[in-house]
């Protein structure tokens, strides 16, 4: 754990507003990026980010200072997203409408392949999706993902392996792979 993180946490525990803003600024991109990819919904992701940081500040005393802060926060984010998805499933009518409107926002002006990848990731089961996004989009190493999800590193590797195969197979079935792409360098 870096000394900066420790100092930042101590200041947050004392109720220093500047430290709280700094902690939010440091990790908000990770939390928001993960939430958007897991929920596939911008407005929901914004709400979840706020909830995540509230929970972080409430339970900051329980953080094990021997472990890095980022996996801990990402673990809270994954849990909150999972809960949010469960709650969202109970109110399908409203969410379907919002989901449609938000899907256009998420599918910004990136290419068709990116959209297909997002759709493929969205169809993964929650564990695979979390691991895939944490590794490939947030750049967390295996060990930190294992800490965030509280799973063994071997399990994380297996999930990532399966998630990749599912994504690749989907891209293949959707015709996103050109014949030229078969050539290896």
């Amino acid at each position, binding site marked *: 754990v870096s000394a900066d993180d420790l100092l930042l946490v101590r200041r947050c525990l004392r109720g220093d507003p500047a430290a709280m803003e700094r902690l939010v600024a440091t990790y908000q991109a990770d939390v928001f990026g993960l939430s958007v990819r897991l929920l596939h919904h911008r407005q929901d992701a914004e709400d979840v*980010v706020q909830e995540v940081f509230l929970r972080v500040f409430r339970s900051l005393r329980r953080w094990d200072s021997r472990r890095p802060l980022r996996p801990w926060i990402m673990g809270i984010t994954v849990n909150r997203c999972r809960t949010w998805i469960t709650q969202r499933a109970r109110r399908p009518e409203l969410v379907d409408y919002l989901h449609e409107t938000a899907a256009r926002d998420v599918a910004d002006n990136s290419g068709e392949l990116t959209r297909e990848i997002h759709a493929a990731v969205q169809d993964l089961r929650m564990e695979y999706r979390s691991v895939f996004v944490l590794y490939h989009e947030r750049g967390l190493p295996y060990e930190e993902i294992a800490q965030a999800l509280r799973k063994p590193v071997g399990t994380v590797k297996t999930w990532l392996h399966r998630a990749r195969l599912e994504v690749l197979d989907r891209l293949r079935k959707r015709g996103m792979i050109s014949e030229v792409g078969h050539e290896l360098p």
Partner: protein
Amino acid sequence: MNCLESQAILQRRLDGAAFVPDAELEQHLAACAVCRDRHAAARPLLEALRVQPPPVLPPWLPWRIAAAALGDRQRRRLRLRRSLTVTVGLAAAIVVMLFAGYLNRPTSEDGKVDHGPFVQNPQSDVKKQDALQPQSEKPHEAQPPSLIALSERLADKTLDEAKVLWTAANPVEGMPMGELPAVPDLDPASQPLRQAKQEVNEGLQAVGRSAQRAFAYFSHELPMIELPQGR
């Protein structure tokens, strides 16, 4: 090379290993369409993930989060302070009640303070010494009659059953059932029970008197609550 080995190489490449040409792999890919397509999709997948723009944070979101966190902290502190105040108030009320009960503790007829059953005093020591004395010295008339009757009934019943069992186990010629050697009196066995009941009664009476006086004191001192008309 088989599909599993091909997948292992694919995973290593997706982990960031270099796409190094491999003759065995090429041979397998030429024969296996599934592996070939997967390997073909790996590089575009990595490239697309690398270049995709990160989700853009709304500019107001950090401010909203910080404000919500500070507000939540203040609310929690306020709640904590309120619960602390209530707890301290309750504790103070209990202390005041106990103190009032102590000031208004019941006195005996001769003007001496009755300390109740929980305070060590010479009288209770005398009682304890009495209790330690042989039980047969105490007259039966001093005990509650219902308890004595219950104990005696139980003792008689047990004695009858013991006689039946004794006769069945040791049949003696010429001795009719029921005529057995003298059985000791079971009354002393019920003496500690009687003594305990008496002491509990005395203690409860003292506590009851204290509570009654405390209640009378507070009901006298507190203002009357006027109920609205129609109830």
